[in-house]
């Protein structure tokens, strides 16, 4: 829990505080399997944080809490894996390995942990055995035989005439901007492009940049939110690992536009390949003179540091993300002040989702008009979506806004792999509503989806087949919600626990009591986690009341 002086303490240390306390603790766990009081004291001494505060950090993040054996197995409990197995893979693995999730064998040889999510939703279920992520048919047998193999990465394609986000970056938009245009000119172009944030909230990126650029400050920062925690989504993973240069280019452009010379990418530890890919791309960019000082003779300095989180969904919320970057517990802070005004180390900070930043190079290269024209729909630009393993052709696909959800599911993803009918889809992550098969003609865009209690969100599309038990789905989602609550605001901390208990009980669900609880979460929560978790439950109440067992 961050109190005023603790935040001030980290602020004074500023960017010198990497590796962060979170990263130092994570390394200690990786090396020795569990944290000791000595580890806490050592990290406190090294970071200048109070011992109690470091202990608070150590009890917050998944990776720091569960003991680790010589062989550490992590099983994905994301929603795509749920859609694939109804959760049976977790039980089967625990039974086969002879160790329960969250436990370590007495001899310290083996440990099992649940994780949400590994981002291999195109090939569920997914299991990480040591450094190897295996997924798809036969994964259980291979892991139990100690013969895990690396699962193939998902395919990626664009259905646009010219791909924008599915091509690796070549820095041409940045070269053009930094040598030919003023920063104000670039900022105006991004505003005009109507680029809305791709992380879920859809806030106009240009306006956010303008706030950060105009607040008087000695320093400014650009932060890429790579904490793609939404189960079922592997879009930012694809961008960070397959097109890391595109992200760095987008960050450098943001830095140029707002007058920042430092950028940070916060990546998830669930994506072990993201950080090395970004660091390699940053080294290449430095060698080519595209990051560093006086870039291309322009006088503009910019460089990027990659920081890894340690397992927490709510760290994807921007104030919690900044707390994690400062090495603290990833809890949410009330806004205002918004990060654009008072962000990382107290300085104006642009926090943008990875995909948002990856859209900027195209705008810088081709202009706002060309960007807006990518979609015939209401919203500008293109969007990456990704499909789960239930579909015939899962993968990452770049699509225009305005396309119907039915076309996405049936034509782009080829319908369900088993040829059966879709029961429902969940779009945009766990905070997104659930669209039943009867509403698939809804256009894929912000306003039409919102009208059905759904959202574009992160762009993941999880298809549920006819065999899906909707009460079990509610239980799965609320368990995730309760487990991931940061614990700061009361409605979310207690309310999600209670909502989970209501649907997990072997009894009918009292509709009135459930709805009063959902309202308390929606109107009372501090951030979108508690505020948004009721959305899919509301959908299930509206469309599947009988299956939910309402009384």
């Amino acid at each position, binding site marked *: 829990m961050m109190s005023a002086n603790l935040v001030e303490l980290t602020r004074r240390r500023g960017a010198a505080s990497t590796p962060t306390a979170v990263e130092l603790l994570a390394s200690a766990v990786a090396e020795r399997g569990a944290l000791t009081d000595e580890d806490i004291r050592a990290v406190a001494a090294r970071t200048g944080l109070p011992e*109690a505060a470091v202990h608070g950090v150590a009890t917050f993040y998944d990776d720091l809490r569960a003991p680790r054996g010589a062989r550490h197995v992590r099983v994905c409990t994301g929603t795509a894996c749920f859609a694939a197995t109804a959760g049976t893979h977790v039980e089967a693995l625990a039974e086969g390995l002879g160790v329960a999730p969250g436990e370590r064998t007495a001899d310290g040889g083996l440990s099992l942990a649940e994780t949400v999510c590994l981002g291999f939703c195109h090939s569920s279920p997914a299991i990480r055995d040591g450094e190897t992520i295996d997924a798809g048919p036969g994964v259980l047998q291979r892991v139990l035989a100690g013969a895990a193999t690396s699962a193939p990465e998902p395919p990626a394609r664009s259905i646009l005439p010219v791909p924008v986000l599915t091509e690796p970056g070549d820095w041409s938009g940045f070269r053009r901007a930094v040598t030919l245009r003023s920063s104000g000119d670039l900022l105006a172009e991004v505003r005009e492009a109507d680029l809305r944030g791709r992380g879920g909230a859809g806030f106009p990126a240009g306006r956010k940049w303008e706030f950060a650029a105009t607040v008087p400050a000695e320093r400014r920062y650009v932060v890429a939110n790579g904490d793609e925690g939404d189960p079922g989504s592997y879009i930012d993973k694809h961008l960070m690992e397959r097109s890391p240069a595109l992200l760095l280019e987008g960050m450098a452009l943001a830095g140029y536009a707002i007058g920042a010379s430092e950028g940070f990418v916060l990546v998830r530890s669930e994506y072990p390949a993201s950080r090395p890919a970004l660091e390699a791309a940053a080294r290449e960019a430095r060698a080519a003179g595209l990051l560093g000082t006086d870039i291309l003779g322009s006088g503009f300095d910019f460089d990027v540091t990659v920081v890894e989180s340690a397992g927490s969904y709510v760290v994807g919320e921007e104030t919690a993300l900044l707390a994690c970057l400062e090495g603290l517990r990833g809890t949410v802070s*009330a806004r205002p002040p918004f990060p654009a005004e008072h962000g990382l180390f107290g300085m104006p900070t642009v926090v943008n989702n990875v995909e948002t930043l990856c859209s900027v190079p195209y705008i810088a290269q081709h202009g706002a008009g060309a960007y807006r024209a990518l979609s015939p729909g209401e919203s500008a630009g293109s969007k990456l979506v990704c499909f789960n393993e239930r579909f015939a052709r899962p993968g990452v696909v770049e699509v225009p806004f305005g396309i119907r959800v039915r076309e996405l599911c049936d034509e782009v993803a080829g319908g369900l792999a088993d040829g059966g009918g879709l029961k429902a889809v969940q779009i945009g992550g766990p905070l997104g509503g659930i669209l039943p098969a009867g509403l698939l003609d809804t256009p894929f865009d912000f306003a039409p989806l919102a009208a059905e209690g759904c959202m574009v969100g992160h762009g993941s599309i999880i298809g549920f087949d006819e065999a899906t038990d909707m009460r079990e789905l509610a239980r799965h989602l609320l368990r995730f919600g309760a487990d991931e609550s940061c614990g700061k605001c*009361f409605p979310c*901390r207690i309310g999600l*626990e209670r909502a989970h208990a209501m649907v997990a009980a072997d009894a009918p669900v009292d509709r009135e009591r459930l709805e009063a609880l959902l309202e308390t979460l929606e109107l*009372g929560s501090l951030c979108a986690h508690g505020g948004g978790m009721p959305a899919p439950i509301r959908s299930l109440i509206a469309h599947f009341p009988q299956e939910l067992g309402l009384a």
Partner: protein
Amino acid sequence: MTRLTIDGVEVEVAPGTTVLQAARAAGRDIPTLCFDERLAPFGACRVCLVGVQDAPGPIASCTTACREGMVVDTQAPAARRVAGAVVELVLSELAAPPAEHTELAAVARQFGVGEPRWPGAVHPEREDLRHPYLAFQHGLCISCGRCVRACDEIQGAFALTATGRGFTANVAAGIDAGFRESACVSCGACADTCPTDAIAEVSLLALAESATI
């Protein structure tokens, strides 16, 4: 100066004043649990929710600054309903009702909270009674963060921290080995601000016990 209306009464406040401060200065009572006027506003308990005209939902009055022309309704039905439900949730996480003299009990009386509609798991009992002046009963902790912030913002000792997350969130002294093994300077700021007696001065705890008997 900023002019706004609170419960139909026009008030004028200095820029930066929060809605909670303005309402209290105007004699309106807004209940709170995580708020302590000596500490920076935190916005965790959501008990101070109020209605604001044209806002999409209730707002937390402790973390919202007054704006020119704002129309605040401290009795807005949605705000009161949600705040009352939150207090109900808080009572449901404790193994037993809070002691009558505590701030939590007073707030529960204000809302007229009865039997919780959402019973369920409660916090396990765990005590640290080894410190000569301070008793720590973790099972009574509602994670309002006041003790952690008082230790930091009033005393500057940094002896306390929030721990865990979600429903298991709690508070620890030092590396959770109790007050004696922490940077605690025995100032008592944590016990003074605690709204549930999760941290209490040993002497006062004894006094309260004898009064009950």
